[in-house]
């Protein structure tokens, strides 16, 4: 399949009539890793949820295309089948639905009727991926995220990423709540997936994750926009010096959304 191309133009997103994302431009292509950094409350997670199509978020302006197709016209499941994958910060718990059954149903939904993955092949593949993510094999039959710890939920998101062959991957604060060992495991899974056929958008507070997943581009979000872009050295500078120098340069006093008015 051709290299993916996600293009965001002037995106505006509101939740309950409050505009959170205020005109955001970004392009992610296959083989690229983009990191979006920024303090709390600057619209990073809203961007991720809006791209996936969460029903609580209203897109009030701008366009988003994936391979030239209008992403915003698609339903959530169509976006997923087009190759978009969002590792969520707070994935839902679904009692009574086993992890394995869920992932298999999701995979088959992508493959389409008549092309379903054989059951035995699926379970072999699932067990291999679980092993490499250091997930206990019993989690295959556990109910989806029910009673999982924060770290287990995050690894389960990464397991799904590894199983579902996504083309554009968004990781929304995948590093929060992970200890250093789990962080390395997650980073390895991302690096293993890295290829010209996959583009990444990594949302994070901390530079720590970016030591293990080296980004090609780093963007800083404040007040619902990207205010500065650069290479990996930008992340390092932010880690060492914080955000104040950048706020000063830009004349921003409060970086959170809605504070500038």
């Amino acid at each position, binding site marked *: 399949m051709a290299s993916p191309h996600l293009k965001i133009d002037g995106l505006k997103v509101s939740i309950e009539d409050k505009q959170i994302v205020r005109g955001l431009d970004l392009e992610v292509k296959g083989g690229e890793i983009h990191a979006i950094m920024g303090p709390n409350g600057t619209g990073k997670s809203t961007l991720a949820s809006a791209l996936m199509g969460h029903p609580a978020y209203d897109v009030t302006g701008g366009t988003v295309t994936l391979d030239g197709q209008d992403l915003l016209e698609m*339903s959530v*499941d169509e976006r997923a*089948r087009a190759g978009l994958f969002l590792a*969520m910060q707070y994935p*839902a718990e*679904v009692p009574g639905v086993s992890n394995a059954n869920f*992932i298999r*149903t*999701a995979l088959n939904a992508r493959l389409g009727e008549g092309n379903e993955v054989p059951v035995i092949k699926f379970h072999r593949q699932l067990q291999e991926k679980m092993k490499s993510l250091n997930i206990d094999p019993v989690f295959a039959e556990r109910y989806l995220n029910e009673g999982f710890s924060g770290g287990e939920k995050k690894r389960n998101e990464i397991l799904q990423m590894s199983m579902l062959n996504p083309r554009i991957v968004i990781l929304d604060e995948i590093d929060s709540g992970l200890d250093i060992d789990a962080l390395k495991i997650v980073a390895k899974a991302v690096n293993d997936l890295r290829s010209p056929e996959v583009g990444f958008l990594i949302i994070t507070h901390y530079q720590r994750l970016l030591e293990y997943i080296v980004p090609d581009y780093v963007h800083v979000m404040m007040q619902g926009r990207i205010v500065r872009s650069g290479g990996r050295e930008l992340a390092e500078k932010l880690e060492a010096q914080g955000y104040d120098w950048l706020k000063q340069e830009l004349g921003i006093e409060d970086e959170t959304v809605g504070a500038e008015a």
Partner: protein
Amino acid sequence: MTEGTSTLASVVQELSRKYAEPEWLKEMRESAWNSYVNTPVVRLEKSDLSKRSWEIENLPLDVQSTASDAVDALVQSIVESGAPVLYVRDGQVVRTEVPASLSQRGVIVTDMHTAVAQHGELVKAHLGSVVRTDESKWAALNAALWQGGAFVYVPKNTAVDVAVHFVHEDTGAGAGIAPRILVVADENSSLSFVEVHVASSEKASGVVTSHVAEVVAKANARVTFVSSNQFRKGPTHFATSRALVHQDASVDWVFTDVGDGYTVGLLESELQGSGSRSTIRALGMGYGRQHLDLTASMLHEGRYSTSDIVMHGVLRGRANSIYRSSTHIFKNAVGAGSEQHDRMLMLDSTARADAIPMLLIDENDVQRCGHAASVGRIDENQIYYLMSRGIPKPEATKMVVWGYLQPTVDAIPSAGVREFVSNLIDGELA
């Protein structure tokens, strides 16, 4: 009803004649009939029975109907699995398959009429002892008119390791359908009993059906009793199931109803013995204009008796159903404990559900008593999450609903019946 009363009194006599019943049973039927006639129609809190008609004329007295394909396949799959099965259609016994190995160990599995003829003393000792003939208008109706039905007796120290099946089909022929089940598990025995009630075509409206099941679990006996139903629109259905649980015995109920009927149901364990235990797992999938008024009840009389009630209702269309869970801990039931969990899920805005938990505690020294009840719609975040992995909305909804229901279906100790119930549920989620 008055016009038919005298005819029906003669039907009661005709039943006794047809099955050549002993005098005690003939008297029991007649006395039950009088009770039925003399008991006024009651108005339940959420089910106004005075607005229902009580037509019971035209009892089917012989087999004229044929089995539906689905029931045929179900019975066949049970027979092939080697499990005992009793198949009754419209009150008439059509098939009895009991492995010789069971009979050799003294286990009795037969229809009620044969049981009366061959094991009269056993039946006489227990029939009407758990569900009294005069306890309600509908219990009286059943006691007067029951036909077909199942009788199971498990001797002391005997474990029956295959589930005993009772398939009861109502093709809609005739009016009064009154299956009666009597299960007696003697001391230190174990049994799984699976009843499947199938409505294979629509029945006239205005008629009444009354199902009664009695379970006696003697000391240290373990009984699993499954009642899988399809209460359809038209009649008023009554279903009364009660177990008497002796010392250290346990009774685990699994109840399912996939239907659109007007039904008043009671599942109850009388935890008489010390250390007795009971669980109720109930599942309702209501559609159309279903009115299911279901009560799961635990009566704690014995010391250190424990119980657990879990009810899941899924409602579609204009279904309007009531799930009551009731725990009564009587004085002197020291150390008793009980939990209740009820969750109702409404799939359409026109559906309505009530979850009513009740705790009546007369004893101060109890170990734990809790209840949790919720009524609501499907969680949008769950649907969003499943869809975000590529699963279309209808399938995601189905998965979430199945998530509620699966554990109860899995508790049915019969692959054939699990599949049968699963197909019914899938049919309503399509």
